[in-house]
Each structure stands twice: as C-alpha cells, then as structure tokens.
C-alpha cells in the first residue's frame, strides 16, 4: 500500500521527515518498506517562457529559442521539437540539471549553436499524457517535412506553392499568422488565390510553414487526413515539448507544478488490517503514532439532479449471505472528461493511472476509504434492475480487460434482468464499461463475502486490487460514506448531476463488539505496569469507545475480538520496546536431546570422523528417479506421496528412498571434478500408510563416496566402524537374498545386526551410474535409522585384562574360490577348542603355486587361556583341530 504524504496531510499533520516517519510507523505496527521522494531525480528544472524563436541556420528542423527563466537575461536553448511557440510556458532543464532515469543535462553546442539546457517533453519528466491529458500533441502534415516513399514518384510535388492542388479540395497553403486559443490555434493562411483562416488543434505549426489545407472542411490536414505514413513526415510527430497550462511563472521550480514535490511511503499491511489499505486508515494510525488530531471529513452531497433514484433503479440480492451490504447511487448527465490535476497527481502518487473523471473518482475513493467502488453505465442495466446473484453454471462474461470467462455457481455476479454485467468484487463487465458517451452512471459500493471473492478470483486467475481487499473482509459500515464521497467528488468536479436518494440493502445486523477493559489482565499478559488511563488514551486515539469498563470496537476493526487483541493495541502504542525484558520464571524443566536425536548426532560425528561431509537434499524427487535406480516398474516401493500442485515434475513426489538424492549430489560433485568425495546425510523417506493418511517418515543414514581412496572394503570398513561405535552385536554382511537392482550384483551386501537387516552397502550398478551420466564407481550405503535405533547394543562391562601371555599362529589354507572368507572364519571358530581369542585375515593369494580356481587365505590366530600360560603343545592341538575342521567342512587344506 502506497501512501502520498501530501494526501495524508489532508487528514493529519505530521512534520517528521521520511526516515523518522517510517521508523515511528514501523514501530507502531505499520511496517514501512520504502520511502520515495517523487522528485528525487529532478533537480534544477524550472518553468520558462518562450520569448523568441528562430530557425536554426544549420538544421532543417531545429529551433533556437530564447527562454525567460525568471532571470535578468533569457537563456538560449536549442530544441528539435516543433510544438513550441512564443509565449508558451515550458519545462526547462537548465545547465547542470538532472531528470528521471539519472539523466544529466549540461550546456553544449548543437550544430554550432550554444544551448544552455533542454526543453523537456512529458516522457523526459517521467510522465505521460494520462497524467496531463491536455499535453496530447496532434501534428499537422507540414509539407516542408515531406519525404516521399519513392523519390521518383512523390505524392506531393517537390516545389509545391500555395494554391497548388494536392487532391480533391485539398490545396497547399502557407501559414501567415498563428494565435493560441486555449488548447487550439487560430491560423491564417495564404491559399495562393487568397487567404483563409482555420482553427486547428495541431501545435506544430509556425509562420511560413506550408500545409495541406482542406478548403471544403476548412481544416489543416494531419498525416491521417493525407493517408500518409509517419516516415513520410519524420518530424511531424505526436511528441514534443510539454507545454504547461498550469498556474506558474518563469523561474518557478517545476516539481510542485507537475506534482513531483510529494513523498510516497510504501507500507507492508498485514492481512488482519484491511482498514489500513486506505489513506484514512493509515492516517488514523499516523495520528495515534504522532499524537496528532485526525481530521476526518464528512461527505456532503447536494444531490440536485432531477428524477428519483427509486424510479430508475432497483436492486435485489438473492444471494444475501454473500452480500452483507449493497449501496448504490446514481449520477445523470455525466460529462466524461479528464479529472483535475490534483486528483490525477494523487492517483499517480499512489501508483494508479488516471483514466477519466468517473473512473478516477472510483479509484480515488477506493484509495481514500479503502472501499472498492464500481461505476457502470446505466443504459446497459436492462430493466433498471441490478441483481446480485450467483452465476449460472457455464454463464459467460467478458470483463473490462477484454477476457471472456466461463463462470460457475461459486462466482458472484452483478446482473441485470437478462445477463451478468460484472464479476462482483473482482472486475466490471466490458458490456457496462464507462465510455466517452456514457450519460448515466451507477456507483456501486458494496461488501461481499471474502471467501467467495477469494475463491472466485483464484479460480479465474484474476486477483485484482478490489478482490484483494474484499477477500480480507471489509467493513460494511464503510459503503455509505464511500458512495457519498464519490458523489461529492462528482459534484466537486462538475462531472454530472447526482440524484437524490441512496439504495442501501443491509443483509446483516450491525452489532458493535463490546469487550471488557481488563487492565490487570493486559498487564499480566504483557508483563508491564501500564496505567488504566494510558490504556484508555491509546484505545480512544484509535477510535475505540471506552465507557467505564466497556470498550466498543470500531466497525473496521474486525481483527479485535478479545483481551489479547486489546493488549496488542495498548502494546503497540505504549511501545513494544518499552515492555521490560525479564527471564522466564516458573517450574524448571529439564532440557535435552531425545534418544533419536542423540543417535543422529553420534552417527553424524562418526561419519565426519571418517571424512564424510554432511549434505542436505530435497525431500521431493522426480518419479523418473525410480527408473534411474532401476527399480522394476511394478516395484511396490514406487508408491509415493504425490504432490498435486508441485512446482515441477522434478519435485513432484516424496522420496521413498534416499539413493537418488545421494546419487544426484555425487554426480554433481563428480561433474565439478571434485576428487575423492565422501558424503553423508541423515535423510527422511516418506512411505504411505501412516496414521490419519499421513506418511511413515523414516530416517535413513545415507552414505556415498567415490574416488581413488574408495572401494567396497573401505566403505564396508566405515559401516563396520559405525556399527561398532554403536556397540552393535553380531554384525554380519550377506549377499542379498533378493537381488538389489541399484547395486553391482557382485559387490553388494546386506548388513545385519543379529537377525535385523539394518541396511545395504555396495558399489552402484554401472547401469545406474550410466543413468546419471557418469562412468565412475560410486559407492553407497543406506542404513535404516529405525533399525539402528532398535538393534541389539551391548552395554560395556569390564573384562579383566589377560594375566597370561597369548600364543599366535599364522595359518594359510588353500580352498575353492567359492568358499568365502566369512565361511572360513566361522569354520575356524567352530573348530577351535576354547583357546582361540581372535582370528584376523591377513592375506588372500591367487596365482603361482595355487591351482586355478583356488585361493590361498591366510589368518593370524591368537590363542590364550585365562588361567595359565599355554604350552606349545596345547596351542598346536587347538590349531590342529581348526585345520581338521577346515579340511573336513570346507575342503580347505593347509598350504
């Protein structure tokens, strides 16, 4: 919401500069986003009067002007514009001046002639003709500027003279005299055979110019009249200098003349305060903030139009629940015209483009009162009846923006007896738009159900300024003053005749809200010691009525429903920063991490200790990710929570596996040529089947790595280290019983702790890597957090240190390739007779000396008895038993 400080000044006097104003308003609850000095970029630009003009001797289109800028001597300025005449008031950018867009003007020579600045057009001042409709330039076709499309065959002869016929009644004529007459000019012409005089709106004429004169209509031809293209008359354009028709004199600063002396404050208004989406609402806040009186104005409508509103207009609201209040007045014999400068300036400062007086009035009232208004052409209200009803299914309506909409019963329309003429609260219909010849206007000032408007606007994808206001729920008490204000402005602007009487349909019973004033409770909530008097004072400044202990809430404050809301009002103006700061009292509570969180921290710590960097990945993925990790089309794990309104396919389903997320990040790092990467994340997966239709959100420790220091056994070692750190008991790694399509079939293991499968680790399948566009070996592990949480974990208990020395023996056995080290180890433990304490693999050998299809596996054995020193014979007996078992069970023989 933008606020013009000039407009604000009409309601409350605040002398603070923009910064102080912004700070104070922000701290009292109206957050200021920006302040903007409209004239900030304009400097050293003044009003000048053209006192003398001469054609530039070295140019066919420039003029050398002497301009009175209120100094002793006029300044000389060269301009290429043709719409300037002696006596005109013009904006003059003097030497060392600045213009919008950071443009700097300095003196200089134009084709050898000194120019001490620049005369400005509208666009150079950041304006356009909607801001100053009178500044529209209609160029005449000046024959001296004629550039034929085809030089061989000019449409107008080269050396045409006054009196020569151009076509039909059109002849060439020379301008012999020119006098301004309001927005037009009276021109005397030499028509060759005699003289003529004509009135013309064309402002680019000067004495001596040769023009095309239509003897029949007594007009000077424009390009359009000659059916000429712009390029044929390159200097006869609808652009030029902004000729000021304002009350000003040479030397005046231009900024106030064009309304650029205002400052605009941009507020962020929270949705609970639609009343602040208006000048009056913000003025009330400003008045309370700065302790200044609020000067509200009561609209006065003379209503001198002839006729009776009741005879002309009838309003019905069959959808009463959606139309709390509908107020309307009528204006006859409307004269559509531009609105006056002060109104255009105010609209513009608030970011609204001026259109015409009637439309501008509706916008003005919307800004001032916060009440959206709609004006529609009475002649299109067939039967003189307005019906506010739900749209019929499939009903069609073309809105003001020219778009056709197909409506449903959820839309509310303004209709006559036959058809819809507007989308209530959103946008008017094209079929009832105010146009140049509109004679009778109906002003509608209504409130509609916020949800209905919001949903309607959303369904049509057309959130308008009006709908944005209505959807927040507007004050029905505001419709009448607003429509009266509109009518008052109509009379003020002389834009039409207001009919006496008002149509006002109330479909609700106004019930002012009354709350008890409870100073102790308010102080209790805030932790303050604010006096009752101060509270009353604050509330009254905001137009709450306080009568004893009863507080009546103003109708526009629908957000205030209880003590806490009153407390906020008090706190805002007492000052949030004047509330003391205290530390919490009361019962002490024991803070801390949950067991889950502790596990998560421990896992993270272990991963980092082993060189893994933590990553954070999106929880949503693309459904195609399941294809990329080669899950079968009918894999039940593909059943994912699907977002119905995702940002895009890539983020449309909730992942049921962390693998694609890890692979994506590994790939990204690989593509960045980062070497030896190790990553981990404790991420969630989202499985269907939770309570209340929610997800089962399981956490997974996801590890991923690649590089020269990574292989299957390195990753396995990391997983083992983590499990050992957690004191997992009975850790096993097994070839998965169901093939895992995402991993290399020969380099993957399921991880078990006891009988609990806690996860999987291995090398990513080359085809999966290929799907990610990499040819590297990626290694990943996925450990189920819940399983880690609940697996068997030993509690450390002291075991006395050995008192007797151990005997170590190395054995190497030759066995079939198919026999796993795990099987050999198990067999060794089985064969031992109670003295074996440790078995450690130290070598696997294939090649010379070992038969094809066999391998030699070497273990280091540690044997020890707890109660005596072992003799060599005892150790040998144990080793023999082990070797016997290896040979018998696995055919592994001592090498």
């Amino acid at each position: 919401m933008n606020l013009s400080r000039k407009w604000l000044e009409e309601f409350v006097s605040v002398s603070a500069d923009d910064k102080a104003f912004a700070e104070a308003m922000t701290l009292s609850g109206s957050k200021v986003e920006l302040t903007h000095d409209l004239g900030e970029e304009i400097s050293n630009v003044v009003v000048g009067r053209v006192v003398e003009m001469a054609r530039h001797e070295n140019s066919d289109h420039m003029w050398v002007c002497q301009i009175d800028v209120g100094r002793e001597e006029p300044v000389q300025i060269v301009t290429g514009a043709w719409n300037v005449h002696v006596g005109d008031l013009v904006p003059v950018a003097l030497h060392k001046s600045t213009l919008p867009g950071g443009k700097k003007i300095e003196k200089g020579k134009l084709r050898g002639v000194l120019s001490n600045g620049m005369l400005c057009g509208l666009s150079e001042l950041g304006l356009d003709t909607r801001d100053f409709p009178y500044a529209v330039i209609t160029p005449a076709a000046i024959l001296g500027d004629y550039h034929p499309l085809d030089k061989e065959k000019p449409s107008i002869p080269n050396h045409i003279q006054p009196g020569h016929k151009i076509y039909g009644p059109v002849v060439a004529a020379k301008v012999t005299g020119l006098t301004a007459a309001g927005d037009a000019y009276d021109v005397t012409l030499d028509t060759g055979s005699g003289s003529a005089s004509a009135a013309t709106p064309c402002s680019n004429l000067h004495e001596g110019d040769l023009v095309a004169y239509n003897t029949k209509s007594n007009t000077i031809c424009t390009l359009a009249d000659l059916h000429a293209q712009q390029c044929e008359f390159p200097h006869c354009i609808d652009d030029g200098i902004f000729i000021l028709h304002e009350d000003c004199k040479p030397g005046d600063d231009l900024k106030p003349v064009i309304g650029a002396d205002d400052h605009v404050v941009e507020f962020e208004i929270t949705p609970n305060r639609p009343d602040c989406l208006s000048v009056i609402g913000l003025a009330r806040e400003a008045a309370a903030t700065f302790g200044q009186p609020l000067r509200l104005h009561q609209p006065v409508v003379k209503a001198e139009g002839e006729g009776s509103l009741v005879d002309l207009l009838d309003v019905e609201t069959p959808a009463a629940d959606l139309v709390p209040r509908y107020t309307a007045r009528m204006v006859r014999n409307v004269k559509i015209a531009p609105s006056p400068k002060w109104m255009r300036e105010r609209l513009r400062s608030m970011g609204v483009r001026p259109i015409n007086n009637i439309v501008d009035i509706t916008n003005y009232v919307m800004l001032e009162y916060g009440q959206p208004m709609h004006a529609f052409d009475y002649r299109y209200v067939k039967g003189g009846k307005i019906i506010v009803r739900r749209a019929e299914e499939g009903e069609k309506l073309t809105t003001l923006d020219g778009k056709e909409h197909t409506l449903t019963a959820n839309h509310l329309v303004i209709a006559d007896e036959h058809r819809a003429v507007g989308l209530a609260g959103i946008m008017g219909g094209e079929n009832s738009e105010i146009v140049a010849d509109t004679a009778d206007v109906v002003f509608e000032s209504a409130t509609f159900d916020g949800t209905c408007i919001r949903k309607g606007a959303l369904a049509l994808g057309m959130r308008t300024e009006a709908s944005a206001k209505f959807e927040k729920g507007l004050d029905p008490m505001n419709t009448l003053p607003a429509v009266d204000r509109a009518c008052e402005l109509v009379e003020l602007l002389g834009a039409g005749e207001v009919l006496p009487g008002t149509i006002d349909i109330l479909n609700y019973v106004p019930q002012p809200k009354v709350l008890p004033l409870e100073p102790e409770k308010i102080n209790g909530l805030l932790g303050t010691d604010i006096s009752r008097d101060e509270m009353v004072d604050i509330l009254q400044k905001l137009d709450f009525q306080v009568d004893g202990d009863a507080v009546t809430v103003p109708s526009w404050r629908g957000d205030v429903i209880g003590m806490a809301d009153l407390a906020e009002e008090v706190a805002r103006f007492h000052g949030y920063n004047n509330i003391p700061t205290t530390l919490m009292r009361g019962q002490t509570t024991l803070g801390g991490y949950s067991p889950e969180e502790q596990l998560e921290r421990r896992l993270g710590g272990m991963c980092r200790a082993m060189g893994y960097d933590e990553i954070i990945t999106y929880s949503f993925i693309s459904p195609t990710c399941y294809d990329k990790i080669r899950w079968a089309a009918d894999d039940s794990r593909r059943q994912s929570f699907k977002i119905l309104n995702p940002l895009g396919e890539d983020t449309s389903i909730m992942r049921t596996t962390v693998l694609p997320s890890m692979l994506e990040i590994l790939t990204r790092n690989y593509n960045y040529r980062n070497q030896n990467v190790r990553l981990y994340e404790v991420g969630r997966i989202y499985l269907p089947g939770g309570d209340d239709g929610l997800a089962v959100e399981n956490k997974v420790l996801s590890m991923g790595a690649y590089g020269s220091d990574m292989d299957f056994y390195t990753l396995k070692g990391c997983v083992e280290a983590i499990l050992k750190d957690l004191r997992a008991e009975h850790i096993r790694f097994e070839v998965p019983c169901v093939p895992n399509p995402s991993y290399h079939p020969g380099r993957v293991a399921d991880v078990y702790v006891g009988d609990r499968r806690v996860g999987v680790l291995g090398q990513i399948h080359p085809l999966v890597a290929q799907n990610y566009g990499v040819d590297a070996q990626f290694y990943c592990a996925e450990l189920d957090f819940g399983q880690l949480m609940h697996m068997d974990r030993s509690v450390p208990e002291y075991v006395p240190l050995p008192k007797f020395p151990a005997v170590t023996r190395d054995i190497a056995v030759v066995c079939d390739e198919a026999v796993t080290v795990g099987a050999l180890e198990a067999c060794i433990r089985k064969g031992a007779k109670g003295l074996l304490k440790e078995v450690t693999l130290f070598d696997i050998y294939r090649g010379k000396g070992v038969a094809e299809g066999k391998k030699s596996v070497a273990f280091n054995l540690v044997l020890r008895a707890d109660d005596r020193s072992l003799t060599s014979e005892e150790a040998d007996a144990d080793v023999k038993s082990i070797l016997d078992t290896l040979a018998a069970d696995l055919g592994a023989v001592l090498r």
Partner: protein
Amino acid sequence: MKEQLEQIRREALAALESAQNAQELDALRVKYLGKKGALTAVLKQMGKLSAEERPAMGQLANEVRAALEQSLETQGKKLEAKALEDRLRAEALDVTVPGKGVKTGHRHPMYIALDEIKEIFIGMGFTVLDGPEVELAELNFDRLNAEEGHPSRDWSDTFYFDTDSRVMLRSQTSPMQVRAMDSMDLPIRIIAPGRVYRKDEVDATHSPMFHQVEGMVIDKGVTMADLKGTLNTVVEQLYGKGTKTRFRPHHFPFTEPSCEMDVQCHKCGGVGCPTCKGEGWIELLGAGMIHPNVLRMSGIDPDVYSGWAFGIGLERTAMRRFKIADLRLIFENDVRFLEQF
C-alpha cells in the same frame, strides 16, 4: 714403581680425555684396567716391593685406578651424550613439510547454525522435538487459528496431496506447537527444528524446501516481557553480548500480540547500509504470545495458562552467520563449499 704408576695416570687420563667414542674408550679401559692392562701389570709387581713400600704403593695404585675409573665414567657419559646429540641431529626433520593428511568430514553450515541454536535452548531447559513433514492441514492451519480462506492455504502457496486440501507438506514448523500441546504435560518448553515447504521457485533467496526452528513456552504467568528477555538472551549468545535488538508489531494468526524481532545490522551498526537495506536493522524472527484461541483449541485454559512462541528461518540465519550470498549453495552440496565450514 711410583714413577710407573704416575706415568700410567698421566698417560691414561690424557688418552681417556681425548677418546672420541665409546669403542675407543672401551679399548683404553682394556689397555689400562683390563686383565692384561698396564695398571694390572704394575700391580702384579707389588709382590716384589718391601713391606714398608707396599702400603704406600698400594694406596697410590688404588688412587690411580680410582682416578681412571672416575675418568672412564665421566668420559663415557660425555660421549654417550654426544652420541645421542649426533643421532638426534641426524634425525632432524624439515617440520615445514606438510603433515600426512587425516581427512575429516564437515558439518553442513546450516546444521552448525542449528546446533548453536539448539545448545542455547537446551541450556535453558527446552526439549528438542521432531515431527512429521507430511502434515494435516488441520494442524498446520486450523488449529493455529488460520481459518479457511487464509491466503497461505492457497494451492498457489502450499503443496497438497489430496483434492480436499487435507494432507499437505507443512508450510511452517508451527504445527509442532499443536503436537506438543496435544502430547505433553504442562509446563512446556520446546523447540522443534525441521523442514518446511512452500511453493516458491528456486532463486538466490528462495527454495521450495527450507528449515525453521519453532519454539514454544507455556506456563502460568508467562508474559511478553519473558518472551523479550528470553529471545534477547538467545541473540546475545548467537551474536555476542550487547547485540541490540528491537521488537516490532506484526501479525500471525496464532499469536496475539505478535511481533517481529530485528537485530541491529552488524555491518553498519545501525546507521543504514546495503546489507540492511538502509534500515539499520535486520529482521531475525517472528514471535508472539500464543493466541487464546490456539490454547483453547488444545484444551488449555487461557485464563490460567499463557505462553509465547517464535519461529526462525534457519537458512537465513546460517547465511548471515557465514556470509553466504546465495541460498542455492546450501542445497547444491558442492564439497568445495561444504569443506569451508
């Protein structure tokens, strides 16, 4: 004989003095004190001496032996020390050669920021809660006083899983307030960090998934002054003692009064600069006194209990903490980025 002994003493002591290493020293020991050594040879002649001479000579011989042994020991120690010194010198390393790398992993910067926040609150007796991200709209909105029609419920703002807008991705961590009230005994002091989701396209400051930390206190007699005091303490711990804060009125459906908390801009000290967009303050978090409706909906009597709550955006906190310029870096997970923290 006396002459001989004196000569041995002179010679031997001189030789010992000039010995260069342990071997030489040992050779000298053998040469003079060994079984066939010079001194031994002289002593063997003792028998030939007269009874009168013998004691004096014996004494002298013992003196010479003692002197030699003494010298042997001193010299031995000296040479040992020298040998050690030589060895250590020979073993000296170029200590500027880089150490052999032990590569440790790095905590993600956002979680570093989160850990700091958690530690502070745990120290104040808060419990850390975790909850679902796929959440009921009832908990994310209705129970937080954001009724039907609240703009944040729009499909353009929030991700939904069903056409009834019943199940959604939580748009804030605030439903954890409701879950805490429903499941915990009073008084409550919790923080609940976690992922939240909003329909924002990815850019330098937006992401459809980001993180918040929710905090809530409910007890008898909890005041807005407590809220201010507690959050000020937190900010001082996060940003250093004496960090200035200010509280501004704001609006959230589930708190009343509501506020936003700003910290004074660290760059300009409050004068105004590009970092704080000229305001001198940087918005840090939203907070407020829990709305009586919210307490009531959770079966807590607002006439007996009161509470406050806050929500803080984690990405922004981490970005400010580590001067990270672009939010996308957080989720890109480039190790060259991660390993800076």
